[in-house]
């Protein structure tokens, strides 16, 4: 059975043009899905509708057998603990240390008082430390996050998502502000998480060649509609042109890289 299923999801920010128009797809457990498309196509909106950071206007979203578009406030918190999220600008609390930021991932499981006071159990701390070690940040555990490099900050972001014990992680342009080397490290980590831990990944990307290299499946979005849904092998130059519009002949895309490395 599909872990995540979207049926005819529609979102209007204003009454004129839809941000999402009848989006339907299903994602299996452990799948690495990449969403590509031009800026403003609705990629971020689509991602945020899944964990209801944005409320949909119409349609149904099923996650893990629950109709997520209907759940009430308390259950919504429980639902969100099962969905990690990674952001382009990392969205860490810069003044806090790495370990404190990672432990924020546990807040969804905590009572109001324990969370406010930041009281975490020994198991939670051990788990957070384990995840930090897995991501190669063990030298920075007590460092403040404003002293880290972009790649390290993004790894903290991944760690925060992982300590949630999520079934799925949503990544909103995780490598858009990183240099090529840090981008590769982050994408390798995301791929590892998907294959080793069986966590479903949905990754918004701007770089078509990165999507081709890492994704099991690519979804192309343009003007709020899905215009492509298939494996990387099926994504020809012609289909890329469909996704990005008519001027794509001038785009800096090198699909030839799919055969490299």
């Amino acid at each position: 059975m599909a872990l995540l299923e979207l049926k005819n999801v529609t979102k209007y920010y204003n009454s004129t043009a839809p941000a999402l128009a009848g989006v339907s797809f299903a994602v299996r457990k452990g799948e690495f899905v990449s969403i590509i498309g031009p800026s403003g196509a609705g990629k971020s909106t689509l991602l945020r509708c899944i964990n209801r950071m944005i409320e949909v206007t119409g349609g149904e979203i099923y996650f893990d057998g629950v109709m997520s578009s209907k759940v009430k406030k308390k259950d919504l918190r429980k639902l969100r603990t099962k969905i990690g999220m990674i952001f382009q600008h990392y969205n860490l609390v810069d003044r806090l240390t790495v370990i404190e930021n990672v432990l924020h991932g546990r807040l969804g499981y905590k009572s109001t008082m324990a969370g406010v006071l930041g009281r975490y159990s020994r198991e939670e701390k051990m788990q957070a430390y384990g995840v930090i070690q897995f991501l190669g940040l063990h030298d920075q555990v007590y460092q403040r996050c404003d002293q880290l490099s972009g790649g390290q900050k993004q790894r903290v972001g991944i760690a925060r998502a992982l300590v949630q014990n999520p079934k799925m992680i949503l990544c909103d342009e995780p490598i858009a502000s990183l240099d090529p080397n840090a981008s590769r490290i982050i994408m390798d980590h995301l791929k590892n998480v998907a294959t080793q831990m069986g966590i479903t990944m949905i990754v918004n990307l701007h770089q078509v060649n990165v999507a081709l290299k890492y994704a099991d499946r690519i979804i192309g979005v343009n003007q709020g509609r899905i215009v492509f849904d298939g494996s990387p092998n099926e994504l020809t130059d012609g289909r890329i042109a469909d996704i990005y519009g008519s001027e794509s002949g001038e785009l800096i895309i090198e699909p030839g890289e799919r055969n490299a490395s």
Partner: protein
Amino acid sequence: MQADIFVKRRNGYLALFFGSLGFLTRAFTETIDEVGSNPVEALQATGAGYFHIIFQAVLPSGMPQMISWLLYMIETNIRDATLVGILTGTGIGFSFQLYYHRFDYHAASLVVILIVITVIAIESISNMIRRVIL
């Protein structure tokens, strides 16, 4: 006469209180705005509740700036207290006025020197705290 001095003191207190209250409210609002929505969004996505987000994201980010504003307000109030004292006839301002009008310039200048020393001391203490927290 005894009751009179209490009324004067209370008026001076209230003048400083409402000035500070208005100013600090505005300064704290700006500080919280500056924290931005990014960490808030991230914590919401983990399933954290409203108070979790305030205490784990907004306050840790904004607290140093807020304390800085608070220290600034303490400095300002200590300086202003002199003036308010002259106007309401209480405190150090009253002492200054009294000696000044009695042409006792030695004592009056001692009061002025004391005020200057106090202000400098308070400012250097608050600058020290600022260096530690920021």
